[in-house]
């Protein structure tokens, strides 16, 4: 209990926690996010692929960036007890895909009439 006591009585002092990720993770995350962004920009500006494959490529690069933010900055693996918020995120992702892909799919019928 002594660690709790120290923690609460000296709140501005050095917190005595043990799972310190250090500075490496955010730095790696930052470098990766900049590189992925510049790759996407370069690929589009130079039209390195056909339009369809290019869109697929930049969407995949964007999806990787979600995981960079989640794991390198948002500490998504941290939780008190079971990792319920990860399940919430997964469920949210299912809804997002249903909304976006479903809307595009259904509005593709008779797209010239609206």
């Amino acid at each position: 209990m002594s660690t709790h006591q120290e923690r609460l009585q000296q709140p501005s002092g050095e917190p005595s926690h043990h799972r310190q990720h250090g500075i490496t993770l955010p730095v790696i995350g930052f470098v990766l996010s900049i590189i992925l962004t510049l790759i996407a920009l370069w690929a589009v500006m130079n039209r390195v692929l056909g339009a369809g494959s290019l869109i697929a490529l930049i969407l995949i690069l964007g999806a990787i960036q979600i995981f960079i933010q989640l794991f390198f900055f948002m500490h998504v693996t941290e939780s008190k007890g079971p990792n319920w918020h990860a399940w919430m995120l997964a469920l949210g992702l299912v809804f997002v895909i249903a909304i976006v892909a479903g809307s595009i799919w259904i509005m593709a019928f008779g797209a010239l009439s609206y």
Partner: protein
Amino acid sequence: MSVLEQRLPAVDTHDDLPLEYAHEDDALRIFGFWVFLVTDMLLFSCVFATYVILYRHTNMGPTPTQLFDVRGFTAETLILLTSSFTSGIGTYEMRRGHRGALIGWLMVTWILGACFIGLEVSEFVADVASGATMSRSAFLSAFFTLVGMHGCHVSFGLLWMLCLMIQLGVKGITHVTARKVFIVGLYWHFLDVVWVFIFTVVYLIGELS
């Protein structure tokens, strides 16, 4: 020891979690904020779906390629990615107990966020001045709604961060302010992810159309 346990029944016994999780109440609020982020993600996904359906409907007005300035949106993207990183460094310094460094990194994050909003507002003003108003076409309605909604989120984040910096200056790093810094960080990183998709779906795919 028993006295401490009686006084502070909500204190966690897990030693491996940082200060912001020390109280049951704070851990619950962090979970609650994740739930908010998921609902905000659903809100954004609806506006993204609307944009993707409408962006070809330019009604003889400006097309995405004519409207977007590559240097402008690239600068906005790099600034926001950097601010996400500096906010992450802020959380790192907070967990080491360095209040001065935490406030300093939050200030850097705030300035980068303000530059981002400044660039976005000047982009919008230039668009409107050239006749590309929100009512010009379905594409422009969807564009201003999506990008403007993200801009409103970032502006709200700036106000929030400013209040938090003042509170940190007055109260220092406590379990309450630590939880608030962690939560505002989650919000900021989330907005960065949303922007990466605006950059991809609106600006880059706009260049291809």
